[in-house]
């Protein structure tokens, strides 16, 4: 690929092909590489900022979910203690990953499940496709799963003549519109009700012709559309939110009941799971089943959580396969400074509070993992040069809400330093990305209270000062080092710093 120091202006050859251009429905098409597609961040951000409809959709949705989350988190008296426990449990998982994976494998196998290991996307897709073909079916039902998005499973199955039907409402919307998800929890967050109605009418096939854009009616159309598929599906594919090493229990957290349908009715269940999704003990579920729902949908508990251990004779799928996926995770693990990105439980709280995400949306990040977590996880998983670590203001709001306390701003700083070592983003190019992020964020940051409280820059600066010898960081780190003495972390909030920087110009 021809890149200019890791800063390709257009990622030619990696994005959707022009004939995949989806026309009136506005989908972006399905890219070849789910972790690296679309225009560069500054270009995509610029386009997003010019799209009034998109900004309205995103602004409304993120504001709604932020306030819901704040309310239900506020009513938990021991929230910080739960975060501490969640973070420590995940740290423990990474420290003991080999033995815990072997323990999980033993327990799943003992209960009649089959465990497969996949080094990369191609291997995982191959395993799943072979399992499906052995069942002599050409259609499978799917529960929303980031892991299968990441490996492009649906596209791989399609090449083998197997249709993978997404059954989560938002995933269905994205799939029908030939689009990409723009949020890890609400993949169609960039769509409003009218757009969704139009997509259903044009692509669903059996949508009632008088369908209106009332959310309830849209949900009922999806119910009717998928009902027959659920009742007749032979094979289902899911991800997993948690896997318990000491019992072999898998857990899927969901809302609509499509997950239950997939996990219960078909004869065969195939679950694809990143190796970091483990928890050591059954008891640990008590922590994550409190942290996850409140952080993600802002509910005290999501409507449905399913847990199963291998095969239960006479109840649910009688054949169960678990595919353990690496696909870059061991690379992340090797990075001492960045490995805590593997703590992520995919709640999406960091997306919803991010002043950059709120304005540019998920597609601008060109990865199935957008937003703050995407900005650290995507480059770590691929190990490629990336401009995403610059696509942040380092305001720190993401860290404040993260239920497992991933210090995203510090990792971003570490990754910027690494980019410099890699000969990645040139100062000019990095500057463009940083400016694009700042420009996007300035709107949200201007509405003060949120960030005056949450945004404490020093956290990231501590990471900068960890590099000790660095007196003056390469741009844009220089913006920080120039204006203050390191390693003394300033008391200033981002908001103040930003205002000051604007004044200096």
């Amino acid at each position, binding site marked *: 690929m021809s890149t200019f120091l890791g800063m390709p202006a257009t990622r030619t050859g990696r994005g959707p092909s022009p004939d995949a251009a989806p026309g009136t429905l506005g989908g972006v098409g399905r890219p070849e590489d789910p972790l690296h597609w679309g225009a560069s961040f500054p270009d995509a951000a610029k386009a997003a900022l010019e799209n009034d409809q998109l900004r309205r959709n995103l602004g409304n949705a993120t504001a709604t979910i932020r306030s819901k989350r704040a309310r239900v988190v506020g009513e938990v008296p021991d929230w910080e203690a739960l975060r501490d*426990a969640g973070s420590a449990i995940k740290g423990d998982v990474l420290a003991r*990953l*080999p033995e815990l994976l072997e323990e999980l494998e033993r327990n799943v196998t003992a209960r009649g499940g089959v465990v497969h290991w996949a080094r990369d996307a191609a291997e995982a897709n191959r395993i799943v496709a072979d399992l499906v073909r052995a069942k002599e079916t050409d259609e499978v039902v799917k529960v929303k799963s980031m892991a299968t998005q990441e490996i492009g499973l649906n596209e791989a199955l399609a090449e083998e003549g197997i249709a993978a039907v997404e059954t989560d409402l938002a995933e269905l*919307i994205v799939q029908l519109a030939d689009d990409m998800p723009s949020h890890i929890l609400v993949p169609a967050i960039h769509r409003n009700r009218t757009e*969704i109605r139009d997509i259903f009418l044009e692509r669903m096939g059996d949508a009632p012709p008088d369908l209106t854009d009332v959310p309830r009616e849209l949900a009922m159309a999806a119910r009717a559309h998928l009902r027959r598929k659920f009742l007749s599906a032979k094979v289902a594919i899911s991800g997993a939110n948690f896997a318990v090493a000491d019992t072999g*229990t898998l857990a899927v957290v969901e809302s609509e009941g499509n997950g*239950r349908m997939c996990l219960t*009715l078909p004869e065969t269940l195939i679950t694809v799971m990143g190796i970091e999704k483990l928890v050591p003990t*059954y008891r640990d579920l008590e922590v994550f089943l409190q942290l996850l729902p409140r952080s993600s949908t802002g509910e005290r508990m999501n*409507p449905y959580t399913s847990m199963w251990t291998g095969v239960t004779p006479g109840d649910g799928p009688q054949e169960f396969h678990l595919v353990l996926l690496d696909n870059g995770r061991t690379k992340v693990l090797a990075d001492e400074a960045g490995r805590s990105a593997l703590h992520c439980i995919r709640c999406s709280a960091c997306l919803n509070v991010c002043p950059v995400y709120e304005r540019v949306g998920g597609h601008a990040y060109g990865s199935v993992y957008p937003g703050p977590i995407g900005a650290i996880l995507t480059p770590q998983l691929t190990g490629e040069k990336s401009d995403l670590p610059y696509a942040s203001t380092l305001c720190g709001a993401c860290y404040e809400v993260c239920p497992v306390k991933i210090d995203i701003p510090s990792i971003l700083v570490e990754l910027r330093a690494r980019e410099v070592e890699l000969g990645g983003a040139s100062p000019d190019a990095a500057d463009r990305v940083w400016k694009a992020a700042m420009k996007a964020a300035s709107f949200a940051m201007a509405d003060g209270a949120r960030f005056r409280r949450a945004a404490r820059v020093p956290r990231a600066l501590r990471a900068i000062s960890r590099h000790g010898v660095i007196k003056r960081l390469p741009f844009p780190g220089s913006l920080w080092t120039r204006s203050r003495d390191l390693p003394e972390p300033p008391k200033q909030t981002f908001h103040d710093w930003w205002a000051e920087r604007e004044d200096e110009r």
Partner: protein
Amino acid sequence: MSDARTEMLSRIRTALGTSTPEATSVPREYRAAGEHAAGSAEVLEVLVDRLVDYKAHVHQVAAADLPGLLAELLGPGSVVVPPGIDAAWLAGLAEVEVRTDSREAPLSAVELDGIDAVVTAARVAVAETGTIVLDGEPDQGRRAISLVPDVHVCVVRTDQVVQTVPEAVRLLDADPGRPLTWISGPSATSDIELDRVEGVHGPRTLHVALVS
């Protein structure tokens, strides 16, 4: 296949290398239990509040009145029950066609789709989150029966209601292999503009009969 396994495990060991983070003990300063006893008035009040908030229908009845309540809720129509259900509960169902489903003699998904409602017991309920947990034992049945019919009537004894999630997990931990369904209100989606719509693929109506 075993190649992939060996290689992944060795990649992980290499990645951890000498910098293996210390296997630290996990601080568990969070609440292991609530301040109120299982089944206490305080706990029940919270449960009811949370269930109603999530658009479940709550009915608080004495045990003697349960058959009457079920008859009223189920009306004329069909209902599926698990094999171990308390027969006394169903005594009032004169006009209802009752089908029994079990692991040994399961109804097909299509058959279940033709049945109006399901009645099950529960394993435990969590007040603070408005959650009911089913664990697939004979009084609760296969997971499919509480999923496919459109109305779920779940009978919960008041002494089964605990205040917090950790209390419930401790109880469930005694039989970790059982297939669990945690239910908090009827199925719902927030996928359209984050507006919550109750009732998607799972039962669109959830009745909780709280029996003292």
